[in-house]
């Protein structure tokens, strides 16, 4: 039984939208924390793609992959925010445009 109205491509397109919003957040925002959150948004949108495909394939590998992505996201967030806190202590800002000690 196929649902005629909402199919795989709907989920994929929605996922693209969310992903690109995440990319835009990374490119546009100077606030390191918001930048970080945009990356989380990108990961979530990919999760949506994975689950849509999983549902389409009737396979559970995608579910497992999503769980692993959760773990990875948590790990990246933990390390990233820890480094950010330290950077903030030294530079007194979270403006990524001012993290420019290293250049050229």
């Amino acid at each position: 039984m196929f649902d005629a109205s909402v199919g795989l491509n709907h989920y994929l397109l929605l996922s693209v939208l969310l992903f690109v919003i995440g990319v835009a957040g990374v490119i546009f925002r100077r606030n390191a924390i918001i930048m970080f959150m945009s990356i989380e948004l990108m990961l979530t949108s990919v999760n949506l793609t994975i689950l849509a495909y999983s549902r389409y394939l009737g396979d559970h590998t995608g579910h497992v992959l999503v769980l692993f992505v959760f773990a990875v996201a948590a790990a990246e967030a933990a390390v990233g925010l820890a480094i950010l806190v330290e950077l903030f202590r030294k530079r007194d800002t979270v403006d990524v445009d001012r993290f420019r000690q290293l250049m050229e």
Partner: protein
Amino acid sequence: MSWTELSYIAPILWLVAGGVVVLLLEAFVPRRDSDHLSIVSAVFLVLAGLSANTGLVRTSQSLFHGVLRADAFGSFFALIFVIIGLLTVSLGAVYLRRQSTPMPEFYVLVLFATAGMMLLASSTDLVSVFLSLELMSIGVYVLAAIERNSSRSQEAGFKYLILGAFASAFLLYGIALIYGTTGTTQFEVLGARMGGNAALAGNLVFWAGWGLIIVGVGFKVAMVPFHQWTPDVYAGAPAPVAGYMAAGVKAAAFAVLVRLIWTGMPLLMDKAAPLLMGFAIVTMTFGNIVALAQSNLKRMLAYSAIAHAGYLLVGVLAISGHADDAATRGILFYLAAYALMNIGAFGAVTFVSRRRGERSELAGFAGLARRHPWVSFFLAVCMFSLAGVPPTAGFWGKFYVFGAVIQQGMVGLAVIALLNSAVAAYYYLRVVVYLYMREPGEDAYIGDDVQASAAIGVAAILLLWIGLFPSSVLELARLGAAALARTF
């Protein structure tokens, strides 16, 4: 998860065990210095090295329901990573000794990240690729930021992490698309489905998946335009870590790239070759041109790392998928040599550095040969190897890779690569000019550490030894390449 299966991944288990032991030692047997930890780490690395490559020469064993594969390809990289790990640990010990605060986590992270590299090189499942890539990366993010007192180090770690996570999202997207269109994440099944499926060959989503995976892996190998992190992170991270990244992360990422290319042969190469060729040309040319303008050794090495990624991509393009593939052999050999020369070169920075501030300006190396003839000689060997001058290992790497490229009929590409390496000689040579032919200035660097010079010496002597007697390493590389041919 049987014992047999576990025995195949013994090197990884040794490293994890080593990491845990170091962690416990640090917690329960605290000491002012951390030299004992470096020794423990080295012991476990050696154990990992000894346990690698046992009985894998002629077999290719699928492990854990197709997640990993134990074969000579993986064990070749396991050996490279063990050597990289050992040199990094010994240079790191020198670096740690200078710091005012103890940072025993260095060893733990090196051990775990090395385990991640080994996993990556043996992965035969996209899920496993993603996870082991992250295991390696997260360790390296922290390593890059390990110098707590230096905001440069932490900026390096942060930039690497943000861009790395950004790249991971693209990689994951690619994995998702390939999983969706083929219904599998396992390399073997994937290869089989690609082989006999005309619909897949015309499926845009499927190819977009491959494209995004190349983006993700391209980020790790510093392919232009995904390279931007490289100079900043190499410059900001402590020299032993930068060397570890240049050598290890690049080798691991190329390992997985080569495995993927083999999986998708020949369909993948047909479609992706022009694209990869463009990236390869841009990558090596950009890296070399910008490296010409650098006055800081670490930054120069960063751009040189980009250029070398280009050369290696040229090699990847020449992979034919036939048994006894010359290009794969060349890439493996090249990576082994490349790892040694980078660790040696970054080791020289470790050698001259001080507690406050790292020293890597080229001007400071002026006349180093008068004060430290041996270290200068070793560094010069690394530079000549990077430039591809015989009889160093770097020459054979280039010889093999470019030879395979010409054998595949891509003469134009080989010409570009060779011209690039001719230009590159200029900036590698400049280091030697500084070492031997410049008067030392007032702020000329001096070093005093025996352990650091020994580590650089090991790298340089190995480079010379491999250059003079390349057969053993090449035989290992041949077995590694053959393992891929037999499997898929």
